[in-house]
């Protein structure tokens, strides 16, 4: 996907530059943007290393496992199909907590593990290529964005001269809650509809 997207972006820019007869500006922008990416990364290294270090302190002290344990009532509400001892519950909880903290590196492996366990534990004899309700709920909630502190965003804003880079945190939290709330309501409605159809 990205291969086509990137190729189209570059070619469109070049052709548009030819059509508008401003190819020297295009060339100059090409050189400047490449340099800008490096400058940006240098600043990002500072903030991202610090935040990642802090999160690792929490991770090694067992914070993620502890928070994941606290999530049990939430999981029972979101995934009524999964019994309390279902093996996928732990990776789902870890994925949600890691996503909230902005620990993408810990979130994705846990999420993939959860998917694998949901796939293994399904009722035998059904269509293995068809997503189950817990899979759908898990993925929709995951995509609704759970991140509480978008640290890289603060870094980008800081780099581009924002007077108050963290000013967006409250609004981002509010917007993220809205999208997650919509996701939860949607999944609950779909679950209710399926149960009604079964009866």
């Amino acid at each position, binding site marked *: 996907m990205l291969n086509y997207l990137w190729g189209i972006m570059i070619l469109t820019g070049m052709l*548009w530059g030819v059509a508008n007869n401003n190819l020297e500006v295009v060339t100059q922008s090409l050189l400047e943007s490449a340099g800008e990416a490096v400058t940006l990364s240098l600043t990002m290294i500072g903030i991202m290393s610090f935040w990642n270090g802090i999160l690792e302190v*929490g991770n090694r002290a067992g914070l993620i496992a502890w928070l994941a344990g606290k999530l049990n009532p939430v999981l029972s509400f979101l995934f009524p199909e999964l019994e309390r001892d279902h093996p996928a519950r732990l990776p789902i909880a870890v994925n949600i907590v890691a996503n909230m903290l902005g620990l993408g590196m810990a979130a*994705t492996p846990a999420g993939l593990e959860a998917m694998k366990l949901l796939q293994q534990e399904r009722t035998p004899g059904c269509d293995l290529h068809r997503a189950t309700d817990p899979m759908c709920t898990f993925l929709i909630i995951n995509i609704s964005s759970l991140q509480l502190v978008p640290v890289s965003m603060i870094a980008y804003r800081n780099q581009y001269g924002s007077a108050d880079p963290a000013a967006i945190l409250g609004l981002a939290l509010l917007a993220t809650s809205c999208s997650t709330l919509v996701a939860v309501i949607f999944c609950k409605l779909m679950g209710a509809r399926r149960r009604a159809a079964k009866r």
Partner: protein
Amino acid sequence: MIQWISRMLVPLIVSYIVGFGLLSRRPVFDDFLAGAKDGMQTVIGILPTLIGLMTAVGVLRASGFLDTLSGWLAVPAAWLHLPAPLIPLTLIRLISNSAATGLMLDIFSRYGPDSLLGMSASVMMSSTETVFYCISIYFGSVHITKTRYVLPGALLATAAGIAASIYFVFFTN
């Protein structure tokens, strides 16, 4: 209230985690160093992607294409009550995080990160995910092809995030 949360969130999380680590009798600084090293490698790891996509956005900008595109999108933008420069950003956001970051940084350098456009872009990027990428990674890993209501649900949640971002930014400023 919202400003207070913005100001308190980072110090609160940092002191909570460090306190939690100390109470658990962990070597907190050693743990910090290990994590910081990983964080550094992540940033260096995405540098080539960033160079490739920021250059592509730079070329599109300099050629005048992005301005023309915004002009074309003015009508659907007015209909959706979206600022025109945000439309390419929201569409790319569904496919690629780094390409969307490139476009967002372009909005930052043109209009400033504290402008209404810059704020909406920041909040929007923070409250949505790369829909198509996530679905293909997660379902691809277990060979699920019948995705049922995942795509409509994910797009609905994303639309709610975008609408909330723009509404809250314009409403509170």
